C-alpha cells in the first residue's frame, strides 16, 4: 500500500540550526500518528514540511503521491491557536467557514453549501450554539474545537493537528480524543503534542522527534529513553495499548 505521507531522509535547517536531521517516516492511510518530543525538537516543523510551508534542505517530502503544495487542499490543518490575534473581530462561524476558501467561485463569495458545511462542522464539535459569538470570547478548549471544525469543513482526507490539547482540561481532552478516534475511521490523522500523557489509548503509533526521529510502538518507550529525549521529570506513559503497527524506520 502506498503511504499517504512519505518523508525520505529529510533534513531541515533554520539558519544555521539543524532542526531536523535525516528524518524518514511513512504514514499510511487511516493511521493515527502522534508526534511527540520536547519543545524545539522539530515536531511542528514536520507538519510544516508536510504542508509545504517549509521546504527541506535535503531529502524529499511526498503527500498523496505528489508534492505538498499540490496536496495542500486535501489536507485539514489545525495550527496552534497562540499564533492567532485574540482581538480580531470575527465570529465563530466566520472562522470555520474560512476552511471553505479556495473551493468557491472566482468572486470569493461563500455559497449556501459552504454555510451548511460550516454549520455541520460546528455541530460535529458541539459548538453550533455559539456560532454567532465572537471568536475572542471562547475558552481555550472551545477555541481548539473551532479550529478543528475549520480544518474539517473542507472534508479533508488527512488531518494535521498541532497541540490540539493545549489549554484543554482533562475531561475535554478525553472527549476530543474520542472525537478524533471517530474521525480516524474516515481519515488519516497526524497530531503533534509535547505531552506524553495523551499518547495513550487512542493513537495507533507514536513518533518521537528530537532533531532525529525515533519511531516506536509506545510500549517500547522506557523511562531511560524519555529521560534522554526530555531530560527528567516527565510523566510516565501508559503501557496498556496495542502498538504493533510500527510505521517509521528505526534510527540509532
Amino acid at each position, binding site marked *: 500500500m502506498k503511504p499517504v505521507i512519505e518523508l525520505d531522509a529529510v533534513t531541515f535547517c533554520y539558519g544555521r540550526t539543524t532542526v531536523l536531521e535525516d528524518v524518514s517516516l511513512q504514514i499510511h492511510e487511516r493511521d493515527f500518528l502522534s508526534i511527540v518530543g520536547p519543545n524545539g525538537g522539530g515536531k511542528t516543523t514536520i507538519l510544516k514540511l508536510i*504542508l509545504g*510551508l517549509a521546504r527541506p534542505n535535503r531529502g524529499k517530502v511526498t503527500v498523496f503521491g505528489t508534492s505538498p503544495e499540490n496536496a*495542500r*487542499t486535501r*489536507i485539514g*490543518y489545525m*495550527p496552534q491557536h497562540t*499564533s*492567532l*490575534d485574540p*482581538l*480580531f*473581530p*470575527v*465570529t465563530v462561524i*466566520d*472562522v470555520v467557514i*474560512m*476552511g*471553505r*476558501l*479556495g*473551493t468557491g467561485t472566482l*468572486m*470569493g*463569495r*461563500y455559497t449556501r453549501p459552504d454555510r451548511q458545511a460550516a454549520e455541520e462542522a460546528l455541530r460535529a464539535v458541539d459548538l453550533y450554539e455559539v456560532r454567532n*459569538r*465572537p471568536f475572542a470570547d471562547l475558552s481555550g478548549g472551545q477555541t481548539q474545537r473551532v479550529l478543528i471544525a*475549520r480544518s474539517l469543513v*473542507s472534508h479533508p482526507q488527512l488531518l494535521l493537528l498541532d497541540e490540539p490539547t493545549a489549554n484543554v482540561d482533562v475531561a475535554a481532552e478525553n472527549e476530543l480524543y474520542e472525537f478524533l478516534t471517530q474521525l480516524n475511521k474516515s481519515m488519516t490523522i497526524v497530531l503533534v503534542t509535547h505531552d506524553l500523557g495523551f499518547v495513550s489509548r487512542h493513537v495507533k503509533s507514536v513518533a518521537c522527534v528530537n532533531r532525529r526521529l525515533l519511531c516506536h510502538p509506545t510500549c517500547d518507550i522506557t523511562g531511560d529513553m524519555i529521560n534522554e529525549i526530555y531530560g527528567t521529570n516527565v510523566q510516565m506513559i501508559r503501557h496498556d495499548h496495542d502498538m504493533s503497527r510500527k510505521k517509521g524506520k528505526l534510527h540509532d
Partner: protein
Amino acid sequence: MTEFFFDLMNFSFLKYALAAGLLASIACGIIGSYVVTRRITYIAGAIAHSVLGGMGAARYCEVVLGWGWFHPLIGATAAALISAVIIGLVSLRARQREDTVIGAVWAIGMAAGIMFIFKTPGYNENLMSYLFGNILMVTQADIWLMAGLDLLIIVLVLVFYHKFLAVCFDEEFALLRGVRVEVYYLLLLCLTALTVVLMLSVVGIVMVIALLTLPPATAGYFSKRLGGMMMLSMLFSALFTTGGLAISYGPGLPTGATIILLAGAVYLSVVFIVRIANSRSRVS
C-alpha cells in the same frame, strides 16, 4: 459652530471641505479596519510619509520642467504605490528586519520630498499643506478624484472581502486553502496607499495614520465582525471630520489638527469607559 452651518449654505469651499471629509471617511472606515486588525499601522505610516517624495517631485517637475499635468496628487499616488509594493515584498519575502526597511522608506521618502521642495523656486506654502493638510483648499477636481478612489476601494473590497479577511486573520491557513496570499496582501497594501492619498488633503501626511486608525480602533470596541467594524468606523470618521471642521471653522483653528484631537479624545474616552465598565463587571 452655528457660523459654520450658516456659511455652509453660502460658500462652495465649505461644501467641498465637508464632502472631502465624508469621502475620506468611506475609505478610512474600510481600509483602516484592515490596517488596525492586521496590525500594519507602522506600514501605513511609512507609506504616508514617503508620499512627500512623490509630491515634491511632482511639484518640481510642474514648476521647473513645466510638466503642467504632473499634479502633486499624481506624484503622491505614484510614491504611495511604490512604497507599498517595496514594503510588501520585503515583509513577504525577507521575514527579518522588516521594520528597518519600513523606517528607511519612511525617512528616505521625506528626505527626497524636502530636497525637491528646496530646489523648487518660488513661495513654498505648499509644504505646510502637504504635511498638515488643508481641507479648506479642496477643489472640485479633488472631490472627483476622491470619489473615484472610493469607488475603486469599495468595489475591490466587496469582491475580495472574504479573502482579505482570511489573509488578515490567518495568512498561513489562507495559503493552505489555495488563496494567493501574496497577491491579496500586496493588493491590500496598495489600497492602503490609495486611502492615504485620499486622506492627504483632509489631514495631511503627518496625521494620516491617526485618522486611519483612531476611528477603527474606537469602532473595534463595539463590533464583533469586521464588516460591522468597517461601517461603524465610517460613521466615527465622518463624525470626526465633520465635527473637526465645524469646531475649527469659527475660531480659525487648523482643521486637520482639530479633527485628530477630536478623534483622539473620543478614542481615549472610549478606552477609559470600557476599562471602568470591565473592572466594575468583574467586581460585581
